[in-house]
């Protein structure tokens, strides 16, 4: 590899591009498939030398707010999250389009079609459209780098934030990436209009009007974007619109020699002129995109007739799951010869708790404490402990969104369910559980909240948890009676003791918090290995 070519995950390419583009502040809450962006920035020696701030935040909303603050002072900033994280951050995100950006600001959303590690497969391009800001959708790791770099320039040109959308296969695939000469960071420079960020109605109306006024220029930018390409083909019976990673699957099938004209779209708002040009040339227009039929739906709004448009809405391509080269081959009517079927003896191997995981002991104790009650009263949350849904535990009955466990248990108890239990991890609790607990305290709801404290954000690879050493003081501060904050050690030999504690709190007619506390075995092992290595090096 040439010296300026690095082997990077798509996530890492974005992080390196941010460094090279002169970013000053990076903020994120971990979430698959986005976590490696901030991890890379935290681990990067170059970022450290340049004094780049790279921090995990309590949740995605505080991350976006932090980015707005960094941009306000004129610095370049990037914030990264998984797709559902943008729901949490939506309030800040949508309004950031109105405040505009002073320093370049990029919001990265890593969508997870097929739900490899997620609760839904929402397509966040809709958020970009909703906010009326440009969306960049790279098709590969090199473009992830190039478009992040370019995104900062675009943001500063139009003074608005940019949504950079990737999907799992761009995020978590490695390829050689060429990088550019680094740009210096911005100096602090406050907005010239000191009312720009005050979204009082009268001022917000002006900002909204301004945002609407630049829309034609944003479309123009897309028409001329180097990332939107019209690749001509001789056979006009079919025209193809392929966005983001879908473009790769199309080109994989043609091996670079496409017979049909193709419009690759990687920058939005959609380039209307380019689309019309293609539409007018071809008999059938096939739209191939990873995620929801976003472009396909938009075509109806400006093509006078869209009778020849085919895609996910017409059933040519599946609505569910991610694309792959085979699905695209079928849609294009190309030969598709798969290998032999999976033999019938093959069974699924679902994920499970790591051997020695503290959650195993916590769920065993909880199940026993609840065995005299009917089933169905444990509201849970999002993290490794959601695996408590699987056999042999089958210990939980819900997993909806970050923090939902406590609010749901509270309302279930409002409705008369006794006992009602919430199970939430330490990091999820400080992400979105604290406000729900405050609701419960205010109404003295008879619920038992179990905060599984493994001192880390486990599922996403063991990032530090904001809850670290703070859980008791947070719960006390929110008004939970200290007598009903019980810390237990989830271990086999403490089982009976733990069952007893849980039973006592289940019977209490008020808010209880039980905190099973034992470090994640993965982070423990990692720490021990590092310690061992250090010892060896000191010898």
């Amino acid at each position, binding site marked *: 590899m040439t010296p300026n070519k690095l082997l990077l995950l798509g996530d890492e390419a974005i992080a390196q591009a941010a460094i090279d583009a002169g970013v000053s502040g990076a903020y994120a809450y971990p979430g698959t498939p986005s976590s490696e962006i901030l991890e890379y920035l935290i681990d990067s020696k170059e970022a450290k030398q340049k004094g780049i701030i790279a921090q995990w935040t309590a949740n995605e909303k505080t991350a976006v707010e932090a980015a707005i603050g960094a941009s306000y002072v004129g610095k370049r900033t990037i914030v990264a999250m998984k797709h559902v994280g943008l729901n949490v951050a939506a309030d800040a995100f949508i309004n950031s389009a109105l405040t505009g950006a002073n320093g370049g600001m990029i919001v990265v959303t890593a969508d997870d079609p097929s739900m490899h590690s997620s609760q839904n497969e929402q397509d966040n391009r809709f958020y970009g459209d909703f906010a009326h800001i440009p969306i960049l959708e790279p098709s590969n790791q090199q473009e992830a780098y190039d478009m992040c770099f370019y995104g900062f320039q675009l943001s500063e040109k139009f003074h608005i934030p940019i949504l950079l959308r990737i999907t799992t296969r761009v995020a978590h695939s490695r390829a050689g990436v060429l990088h550019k000469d680094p740009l210096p960071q911005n100096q602090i420079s406050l907005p010239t209009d000191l009312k720009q960020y005050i979204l009082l109605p009268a001022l917000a109306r002006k900002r909204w009007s301004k945002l609407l006024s630049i829309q034609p220029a944003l479309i123009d930018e897309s028409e001329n974007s180097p990332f939107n390409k019209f690749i001509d083909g001789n056979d006009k019976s079919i025209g193809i619109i392929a966005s983001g990673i879908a473009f790769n699957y199309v080109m994989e099938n043609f091996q670079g020699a496409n017979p049909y004209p193709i419009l690759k779209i990687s920058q939005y708002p959609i380039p209307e002129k380019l689309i019309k040009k293609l539409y007018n040339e071809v008999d059938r227009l096939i739209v191939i995109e990873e995620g929801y039929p976003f472009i396909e739906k938009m075509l109806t709004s400006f093509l006078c007739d869209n009778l020849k448009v085919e895609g996910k809405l017409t059933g040519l391509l599946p609505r569910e799951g991610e694309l792959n080269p085979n699905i695209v081959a079928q849609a294009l009517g190309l030969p598709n010869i798969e290998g*032999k079927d999976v033999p019938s003896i093959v069974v699924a191997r679902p994920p499970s708790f790591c051997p020695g995981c503290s959650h195993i002991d916590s769920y065993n104790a909880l199940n026993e404490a609840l065995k005299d009650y009917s089933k169905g009263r444990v509201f849970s949350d999002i993290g490794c402990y959601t695996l408590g849904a699987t056999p042999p535990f089958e210990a939980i009955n819900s997993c909806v969104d970050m923090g939902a466990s406590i609010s749901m248990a509270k309302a279930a108890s409002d409705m008369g369910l006794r006992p009602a239990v919430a199970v939430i991890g330490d990091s999820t609790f400080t992400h979105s559980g604290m406000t729900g607990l405050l609701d419960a305290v205010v109404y003295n709801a008879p619920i038992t909240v179990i905060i599984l404290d493994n001192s880390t954000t486990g599922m996403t690879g063991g990032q530090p948890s904001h809850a670290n050493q703070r859980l008791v003081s947070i719960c006390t501060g929110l008004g939970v009676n200290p007598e009903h904050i019980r810390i237990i050690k989830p271990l086999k030999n403490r089982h009976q003791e733990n069952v007893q504690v849980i039973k006592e709190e289940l019977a209490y007619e008020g808010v209880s918090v039980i905190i099973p506390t034992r470090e994640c075995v993965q982070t423990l092992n990692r720490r021990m290995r590092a310690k061992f290595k250090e010892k060896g090096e000191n010898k």
Partner: protein
Amino acid sequence: MKKDIILAGVGGQGILSIAATIGLAAIKKNLNIKQAEVHGMSQRGGEVVSHLRISDSQIFSDLITKGQADMILSLEPLETLRYLPYLHESGWIISNSEPYTNIPNYPDLELVYNEIRKYKNHVLINADEIAKKLNAPLSANMVLIGAAAHYLGFEPQEIEDAIREQFSKKGEDIVNVNIQAFREGLAFAKEYIKA
């Protein structure tokens, strides 16, 4: 030159270290590579797969097309079967025979082996046992790469160089034991195919 390799195993077995070794060998030859993996939920003892693509021309898709894989290289025999739809009819199966039985309904192992043996182009090898004999249980992955070496499109020496580079920070002993493991796998496959 083009090699599309499905790397399969169970979360925690270390398929990514195999990808790293072969990837490094490819980079040293200035070939293009793409390597797709999935993180998160699936890494917790579940099935994991990585798509490793190596080519001297441009690689478009991160995912291998079903029916086009040149090889399934698997750390676990049941996991080998899960990805058969990816294998080209002339492709190779290089599979560890040591099962990873973290599920209650693991099928009869002989039936699993029989499915693999249905393919003429296969090497079924107990990489764990060979690695243990070398007193290097963590080197089973290198044994497996050795068994695959004939069909990866590299000279064995090129892969040894990659192993050397990959483990160089860990000291000469670790380098040597991994190269030894690689050679054992290579020798085993040679005999296996003759038989």
